[in-house]
Structure formats: structure tokens, C-alpha cells
């Protein structure tokens, strides 16, 4: 049963991957892709494949639910895969409203990255600690994931807008920042590749080290240690000695992973640039040739407009109700709570700028990009780095 569940996730992953060339093909095939146009065979294949993948992932979700006895949204792996699934679901719905295969070309890779990223964390089915034993776990977490996924669609649309609108004939601030965003996505891919490769090779290096309270401890690295722990002493034979070591207050293992990811990201990015002989933004630009700028702007804006209330409901209101029940207070300034508030404030500012200050088009697109970065920060950094009461959601 567990194997079946995991295989369904692989199947979903493969189908999502397969859908991308079809969405790409759909754009090459049809010259005019306004929303009223019939999108053609390629796009239909693309969306059908996406839906099959989505169904498979739903299968993964519900089989895992029945095995565990609780909705699989209780750790970082489960939450993040669910977030990826919601992203695909939100894309499918928006596809049927606006009929834009191009959105698939940008959203599906993001969803794939999200799911691949999730799979780097422990995938064991874990029992629920007492604080999580509540129906609010299902209600709160799924609503948050759904809200964030809809907001992520706005990021996908914003990216299309930026790729299309930014002038690639000369270097500018805009082209540079767009490359930074592309690099961010590529670095995530780098993380996935590095972690998978060393995990496949079963790399393990154990260290003795001294923590910030001067206690001796052991730590096991699964990547070669570029950065070693405080007063680290390598215990495993034949593994790499760290190049540098950091004070005990810093989590060397996590820092090491981050450095590997960014390093792999730089290599990959460099490779892409070498092969393409132009900026990633410039290489993607031809795909956006036939897209209507107003339409992607509207998709991006409407996604925020739809996602914001869902996020508020899940991330703040349901969150507060549950916090009152489980933690005796509806609000406690836990880092995750604060970052949910920050996300909410940011999108509130976004809507005010758009509605009252006329921030449309490019400016609005950049805001959608920043919003997505904040969401990712709350998902990744707050769990793994800041870690407060929500840290059980980490690994």
C-alpha cells in the first residue's frame, strides 16, 4: 500500500514532466493564442496529461491519508507535495477559464520543482504529535496550501509577463533581476540534483563536534562537507575533510547544503548560458511571442484577488481558531505566524497599489514575484532556519 502510494507520486511527477513539451509545442503550433482561440491538439494533450498526473497525485494523497489515518500534510515533505498539487490544480482551473497553454509551460516546471524539492526531505509517514491531533490540521493546512498555490499561479503569470515585456536587446536592471529570479529557480533544481546524486551514491560522513553550549555531539552529513561543524572531527574513513568550519552558533550542515545548492545553481546557470549564448530570459522570450500582455496581467491579478481571501481564511483565520484551541491563544508571534502576517500585509499592499495607485503591468508583475518569494521564504526558511512552534513541520 505504501509502495502504491509512492508510485502514484512518481507517476504524477512523470506526467507533469511530460506535459511541458506539449504546452511548449502548443505555442509553436498556433500563431494566435488569444483566449477566444481554440488552443489546438498540442494544448489539449498537454492539459489531459496534466489532469492524469493530477489524478495520480490525488491518488497518492488519499492512499497516504488512509494508510496514516490523517491527511498527509503534517511534515515538510507532505505539505510541500500538497502545495505542488494545489498549484497544478489551480493551473488546470485557470486553463479552462483562459485557455492559455503558455501558463502551463511556466507553471508546470514550478510545480515540478516544488515537488522535487519536497522529496528531498524525509518521506516517512510520521505519527501526529498531540498538538497536531485535530481536524483543524486538515482544514487549516489545506486551505493555506490552496491559497498559496493560487498566489503562486500569479507568480507564473507574472513571470510570463516579465519575460515578454522586458527588453532583452540591452542589459538593464530588469534583465538582471529577471535573471536573478531564473537563477533562484535553477538553484532549486541544483539542490534537487545534488541531494539526489549523493543520496543515490549513499554518501555519509559522520562528525564529532562541539555545539554552542560546549556539549559534544555527532552529526551525519549526506553531502561532502565544504563547511564543517564547530571543532568538527571526521569519523568516517575516506570522506572529504571540510574546507572551513564555522562557530557552533551556526548550523553547519544546513549551511553546507545551501552552499552546495547555490554552487550547483551557478554551474547549471553557467551551463545554460553557455549553451544558449544569451540570457535565460531572452531564451524564453520567443515562447511568449503570441501572448496577449493584458491577458497575463489579468490572470496574475485575478489569481491574487482569488488567492488572497483563501490565504487569509486558511493562513490567518483558521490558523487563529486552531491556535486558540491548541496553544491557548489565537496569536503568539511565533515566526511562522509572523511570516503569514507578512505575506498577508504584502498582498494587501499589492492590492492597494493596484487598485488605488494604478500599479499595473510590469510593476504589478514584479510585486507578484516578490510575493511568491515571501511565500517560499515562509515555507522553506522559516521551517528550516528560524524554526519556532511550527518546527515539527521541518525534517
Amino acid at each position, binding site marked *: 500500500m*505504501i509502495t502504491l502510494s509512492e508510485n502514484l507520486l512518481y507517476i504524477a511527477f512523470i506526467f507533469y514532466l511530460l506535459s511541458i513539451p506539449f504546452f511548449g509545442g502548443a505555442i509553436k503550433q498556433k500563431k494566435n493564442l488569444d*483566449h477566444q482561440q481554440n488552443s489546438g491538439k498540442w494544448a489539449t494533450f498537454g492539459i489531459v496529461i496534466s489532469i492524469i498526473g493530477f489524478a495520480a497525485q490525488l491518488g497518492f494523497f488519499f492512499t497516504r491519508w488512509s*494508510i*496514516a*489515518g490523517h491527511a498527509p500534510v503534517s511534515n515538510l515533505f507532505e505539505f510541500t507535495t500538497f502545495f505542488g498539487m494545489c498549484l497544478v490544480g489551480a493551473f488546470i482551473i485557470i486553463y479552462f477559464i483562459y485557455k492559455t497553454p503558455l501558463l502551463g509551460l511556466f507553471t508546470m516546471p514550478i510545480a515540478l520543482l516544488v515537488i522535487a524539492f519536497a522529496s528531498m526531505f*524525509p518521506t*516517512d*509517514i*510520521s*505519527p501526529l*504529535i*498531540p*498538538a497536531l*491531533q*485535530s481536524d483543524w490540521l486538515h482544514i487549516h493546512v489545506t486551505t493555506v496550501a490552496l491559497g498559496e498555490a493560487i498566489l503562486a499561479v500569479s507568480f507564473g503569470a507574472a513571470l510570463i509577463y516579465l519575460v515578454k515585456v522586458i527588453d532583452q536587446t540591452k542589459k538593464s536592471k530588469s534583465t538582471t533581476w529577471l535573471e536573478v529570479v531564473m537563477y533562484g529557480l535553477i538553484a532549486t533544481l541544483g539542490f534537487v540534483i545534488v541531494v539526489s546524486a549523493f543520496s543515490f551514491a549513499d554518501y555519509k560522513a559522520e562528525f564529532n563536534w562541539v555545539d*554552542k553550549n560546549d556539549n559534544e555531539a555527532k552529526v551525519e552529513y549526506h553531502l561532502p562537507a565544504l563547511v564543517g561543524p564547530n571543532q568538527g572531527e571526521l569519523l568516517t574513513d575516506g570522506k572529504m575533510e571540510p574546507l572551513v568550519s564555522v562557530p557552533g*552558533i551556526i548550523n553547519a550542515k544546513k549551511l553546507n547544503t545551501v552552499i552546495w545548492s547555490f554552487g550547483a545553481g551557478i554551474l547549471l546557470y553557467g551551463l545554460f548560458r553557455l549553451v544558449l549564448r544569451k540570457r535565460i530570459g531572452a531564451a524564453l522570450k520567443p515562447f511568449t511571442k503570441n501572448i496577449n500582455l*493584458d*491577458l497575463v*496581467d*489579468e490572470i496574475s*491579478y*485575478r489569481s491574487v*484577488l*482569488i488567492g*488572497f*481571501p483563501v490565504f*487569509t*481564511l486558511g493562513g*490567518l*483565520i483558521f490558523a*487563529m481558531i486552531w491556535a*486558540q*484551541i*491548541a496553544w*491557548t*491563544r*489565537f496569536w*503568539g*508571534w*511565533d*515566526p511562522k505566524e*509572523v*511570516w503569514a*502576517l*507578512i505575506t498577508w*500585509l504584502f498582498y*494587501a*499592499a499589492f492590492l*492597494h497599489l*493596484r*487598485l*488605488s*495607485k*494604478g500599479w*499595473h*503591468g510590469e510593476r504589478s508583475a514584479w510585486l507578484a514575484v516578490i510575493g511568491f518569494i515571501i511565500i517560499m521564504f515562509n515555507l522553506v526558511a*522559516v521551517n528550516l532556519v*528560524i524554526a*519556532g512552534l511550527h518546527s515539527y513541520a521541518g525534517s
Partner: protein
Amino acid sequence: MNQVKCDCGHVNPHGTILCEACGKIIEDGTQITAEPVIDMRYEGSARRSQTYNKSMIDKVWNFFSSVKVGVWLIVVTLIASSLGTILPQEMYIPNIMPVADYYEDQYGWFGRLYYDLGFHNLYSSWWYLLLIAAIGVSLVICSLDRVVPLYRALKKQRVIRHESFLQRQRIFGTTSMAVSKDSYELVKEQLKKKHYNIREDEGNILAEKGRFSRWGPYVNHVGLIIFLFGSMLRFVPGMYIDEILWLREGETKVIPETDGQYYLKNVDFKLEVYDKETDNEAFSDALDSAGMVAKNYQSDVILYKTKGNTVAGEEPELEEVESSSIRVNEPLKFEKFALYQVNYKLDELSKMSFLLTNKTSGETFGDITINLNDPEKMYELDNGYSVELMSYFPDFEFGDDGNPTTKSRVPNNPAFVFKMYSPEKPEGEVSFVAIQQTIEPLGDNEYKMAFNGIETKDVTGLTVRKDLTLWIIGLGGLIFMIGVIQGAYWNHRRIWIQRKGDEVWVAAHTNKNWFGLKREIQLVLTGTEIKEPMDQLKDNQVDEGETD
């Protein structure tokens, strides 16, 4: 106040840009724009902030009514909030040393700086609260400045609009022919099918729907203001109670802040962990890597209410209200109170027993058991032996003056001064007994108190909570949600179809989602001779604000 009369006869308040009734631009020389499309934000109504700027009040009003200021306040609050997550807040650090030292010890100079800047308690700092208050003021003034004139303008609007108003709508088109009766009826029918409210005047149509979505922002602002007001109420005495109640197994204590009305007995505290053998086998991998995982924290308790009036100092008479189990996520509620499972301590020492023993012969003369939370003064033994407990230190340490003292009343490290009476030593022998050490301050004794075992009990830590602000905060949240949904999921759309001589003019406006509006107009006009209107901003880069 000087009012402005429009050519159409409607009297507008001072400061109006577009006549409330017919939409004609009111010429006072300042507000005319050369844009092809008029600014429909707030319907061109007379906003106080755009009209007056003389007195101090005007200036304060104008400052807070600006969305720009509001957005800046949001952005500053957002950045300030993020600063508080860099290091843990004071409430989340362990209480092991002075706060300032803790930050420096754990995080070095940066921690020290963080503490000195007051970021360890950022969210209750005066400047953070000031920011929140400023947002609250901005919410009130922004909303009032806009909602009143907007309401007036939408209420006073007439079906027949001035030509200039129609021509300068974003969506506008003309058809050079008189419209037939059939087409007119068909359009009306199709508009109705799309749930438009139709008003007619001399063969002209104003079709409108979703006007209530225009109130969404103001409704959600009202919700936020109620929410903020509710949060402030916490500081009103009696509205909010946050106490901790520690209860040992078997112990009955008064519940704090209930005026001695309620008592709670801890019957049993349970800590359960997941077991690979008996629990879901799917968890076994996770349990292998995580080790022990808590499954349940539970206090089985009995809630009592006092009967009648109790005189101070007298044991109250208790009446059982209910017996219940408090678990995480399942607080016990009574009246306005809730008791939450938040903490515990396993195996606290509760009793210690000693044998009165002759040091040379090893013969024993009976044992005494001391209740560490309620010790007795004298312990009588048979055959003329007895033990007096002269001093008791539940949490023993040597004080600064070198004398024994106690850190707390919790028996973490009990120590005793015994006086042992025996037929041989009727005046008694003094012995100081602590864990793993015995001191005989007055020379060698003949007898000793030999340690003979302990009993332990679990202690449960419950939060006693009363929060009378919850319903207001909940109401604020609910109204906010309603407002957001109202504003986000509906659009305010208007379509004007007017006869001007031999022509039919069509103009339309929406506060958002122009694609949807255009699609709808297309549907509404199919089957009629009326031409689809144009989007006058199409292909121009849209840089116009939407109208809310």
C-alpha cells in the same frame, strides 16, 4: 457650503469632479484632464481630502486618507515584523539566566545589539503598537473619505448620462442607426439573463450588477477595525486572564481568578508515546529515526464548585461539577474559563521514607514516611523512639551565607534536619540529611536516618484562560472575510445603452476584470444591430487606476 449645480439640474457637493447624476465633468478649472478616458475612481465624487486643506484637522485627515500613506504604513509594519523573527522573542527563550545575558551568550554581539534595540520584545514595543494604531487610523479615515461620497454618487446616478461621460468611458462605441424595438427588447432580455438590474428612461438603458462589491473594501476595513478594537480590549481589567495552574496527582487546588468558586483535582496525569508494536505500523520507519514521539498528554481531572459561602481560612465544601480529561486540543471549558494542557513534570518526588537505624548494630526502629509537600513536625515510633523534623528544605542549596536554604517550594532536592529521640538519647541527636549526604553538626551520632525509598507523582501544568474579547475578535474576522470575498469575487459592472439622435451609444464600466465585461457585452449584443463597443485603452499601456 458652496454647492455646485450641474447643467442637468443636480446639485453636487463642493469638490465634485463628475456630476453625481449625469456624470458631466464639473468645470472648476482644476480637474479637467486631457486623457481620452476619465478617471472613474470613486465616481469622481467630492472627497473631503481632495477638497479641503486649510485647518490642522484637514491636514491630518488628508495625510491619513492617502492610500500612499496607508501602503507605506503596511510596508513599514511588514519590515518591522520581519525583524522580530531574526532571533526568538523573549517569550520563547528559556528562563535560565537574565534575558540580556541570554541573548549575548547565545548570539554574541548581535544578540546583545538585538536586545539593546528592544527587538527581543518587538511586538509589544511602543513604536510597533504605534504603527498598528496608525494603520487603524488610516483604515478609518481612508474608508470614510471614500465611502460616503461614493455611496452618494452611486445612489444619485441617473440612467441618462452626459455625452462627455459616455464618450470618455474606457469601453465605448456608437452604432449609426436607430435601434429596432426587437433589438431593444432582446438586449434587455439578454441583460436580464446575465442578472443585470435594468433601469430605463425614455428608451435608454442603465444595466448594473454587483454594486455591492464596491462596498467590499469598506466592509473589510470595518472588520479590521473591530478586530483591532477587540485586541485592545484585552488590556481592560477582567477581560483577559492568563494563569498557570500546577497540580500534582491527587492534589486539589483552587482555580486562580475564579474568586475561590472553582476547584480542580488532578486524578491522574498521562504521557503516552507511540509504540511500534501497537500503533499503526506505517509509523515504524518514522519512529525508528525520531525515537520517542509523544502521542498524548492528558490530565484526568475533577472540577468542583464551592457550596454556599466559605469563610476565609475554613475548608470550603466542594461539590463535583464534572469529571473530565484535558488533552492538548481538548481544553476543559466551564463558564467563561478554559483549562488547557500545556505542561507537565513527570515523577516529581512526593514522599520519602527513612529508617531510624542504630549506626553500630544496624538495628532498625521503625520507618517514617515524609510527605514532601506537607511534612509533619513529629513522627512517633514504637518503644519510646521518635523523630522530629526540625527544618525542611524542599529545593535545597547552600545560600550565600553558607547556611542551607531552599530555592523554591518544589521538592526537587529535598533536605532535612532531623532530631532523633531514643531511650539512650532522650535529649535527641541532630542530623542533617540531604540526597547523597549526611552531616552531623553536633558530633558523632549513635543513630542515623537511613534512606528507605521514594514515591513520585506526576504534575500537570494547565493554563487557566478567560478571554472575553474572543467574540469581538471573531466578529471582526468574520466581517473582514465577508468584505474581502464581497470585494474580490464580485465585480461592479455597468452598461449604458443610450439613443443619441440616430445613433445608439454603448458605454460600459467595471471596477475590475475588463476581459469578463467585454465578453459579457459581446454576448448581450449578439443578435442585435448594435455594434460591439471598443476598448479605448486597448494596446495603449494601461496605466490607469481601477476604480476602487
